[in-house]
């Protein structure tokens, strides 16, 4: 089988300005953050992002990488709103297509099935229709004659997702409770890149989880990268929970230009290994402060 393994920079070298990129996960859960951080380090710009949005949206918006965001929501889960997405929107600098989250699913399914659209009830009567002027309805050709929303295919140039395990051929395994929509993001994309906590041999894949945990097969995987703790600070259970103290630090970095600058210098000025070291130092510092208080 073809070895599809690559590096985070190898993935980013395949991306171009103006591309439409779908990012898997959900809110602040199992986001391919190492790949997002690699995009932050790059010169890429004018990207359109399709996402069940979390800090992937906020970070890329704050760094000025985005022209447009297509989403149903943007949230950090335990922190309801992402401050950087919010600030970019309120400055009026971000183009958006806001859909019902089920409409996003319909759009991904349509793209994955090479259909121009899929009908759905979601959106009817709401302002989603007015906010997306290109969006139109379709009348059932059958006896019911019901009018439905024709959700257009959300065709992606590239999908980026994060798995718990993968092999070098690009078979991907999730071990948490929810697959989210990662297989659909990959199927809706011309190219899909999978980062994972751990690259294992194909024989080892079923040592850690049951057959249905093999969410991605290699038909859709263009490249695969091992990025331990690569979903940080979002959750990637059972490998790790969300890093709540760090997420609070991230949320606080939206308070001012200075706070963002400081966060950026401290955590995002180097490569992925610098980032992981800075995170370790962040926690070590917190522990020392805690111990000092106890003493």
């Amino acid at each position, binding site marked *: 089988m073809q070895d599809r393994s690559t590096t985070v920079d190898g993935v980013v070298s395949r991306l171009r300005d103006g591309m439409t990129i779908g990012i898997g996960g959900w809110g602040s859960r199992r986001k391919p953050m190492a790949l997002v951080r690699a995009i932050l380090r790059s010169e890429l710009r004018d990207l359109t992002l399709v996402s069940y949005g979390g800090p992937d949206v906020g970070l890329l918006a704050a760094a000025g990488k985005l022209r447009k965001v297509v989403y149903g929501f943007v949230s950090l889960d335990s922190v309801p709103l992402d401050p950087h997405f919010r600030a970019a929107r309120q*400055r009026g600098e971000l183009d958006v297509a806001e859909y*019902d*989250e*089920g409409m996003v*699913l319909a759009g991904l399914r349509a793209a994955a099935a090479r259909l121009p659209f899929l009908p759905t009830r979601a*959106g*009817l009567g709401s302002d989603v229709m007015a906010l997306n002027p290109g969006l139109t309805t379709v009348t059932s050709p059958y006896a019911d004659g019901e009018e439905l929303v024709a959700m257009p295919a959300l065709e992606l140039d590239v999908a980026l997702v994060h798995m718990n395990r993968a092999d070098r051929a690009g078979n991907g395994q999730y071990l948490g409770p929810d697959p*989210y*929509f990662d297989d659909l993001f990959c199927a809706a994309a011309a190219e899909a890149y999978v980062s994972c906590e751990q690259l294992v041999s194909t024989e080892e894949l079923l040592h850690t989880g049951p057959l249905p945990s093999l969410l991605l097969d290699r038909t859709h995987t263009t490249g695969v990268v091992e990025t331990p703790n690569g979903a940080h600070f979002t959750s990637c259970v059972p490998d790790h929970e969300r890093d709540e103290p760090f997420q609070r630090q991230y949320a606080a970095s939206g308070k001012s230009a200075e706070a963002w600058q400081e966060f950026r210098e401290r955590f995002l000025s180097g490569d992925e290994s610098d980032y992981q070291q800075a995170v370790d130092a962040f926690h070590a510092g917190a522990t020392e402060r805690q111990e000092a208080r106890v003493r």
Partner: protein
Amino acid sequence: MNDVTRAEVCAVACADSWADAGTVLASPIGIVPTVGARLAKLTTAPELLLTDGEAQLLADVPPMGSGADGATVEGWMPYRKVLDMLAGGQRRVMMGATQIDRHGNQNISRIGTWDAPKVQLIGVRGAPGNTINHTTNYWIPQHGPRVFVESVDVVSGVGHDRARRVGARYHDVSVVVTDLAVLDFAGPEATMRLRSVHPGVTVEQVQENTGFPLAIDTVEQTRLPTSEELDLIRSTVDPKDLRSQEVAQ
């Protein structure tokens, strides 16, 4: 039962909104609606499907804040199944609202203009799909004129006027429970009507805190929890009293 708290009155009002739900997935957003759904499962709606807030369905009712600890898991409900089943109608939600109008149009998307909103909120999320597909009720923990508005800035959840206009056959927005009152849509042309006020709350107080005229005919007092319900709330459903964080006494 003089020591019944406002939060407990609200929880029981929320529980009543699930009473006729049957075998459906209960999706309560917020603490008090969650107390309500769990209480309903223990009393009037034993067939409700409850989740741990993630992807597990729970056959019994664990205490609030304990996740699935000690509960029997009876099924798997990841987000994509939720999105499919809500279109199939086997779900009932109680959502929040940043704004809501007299027709039940709800906004959780943004305040201000589209191009440069004054406040960007979470996004329409599942509100358009929920309201067009299955029973959707609302929980407002702080009843005030900034929430109850003449006209919402973005229609996320669909109200009765718009539902009628698009012939929404599965639209069913029934009640709005707040920290002051229970409202429904039995006013003229399916507009918001004050159904009951909580103990210690006046009709005038509710109207003052609502940014549009409410339909008001017979206003009852919201019913108090029975002693069985009170016992279930305090000892089984919410022993840590998380409900008081959402509605102070």
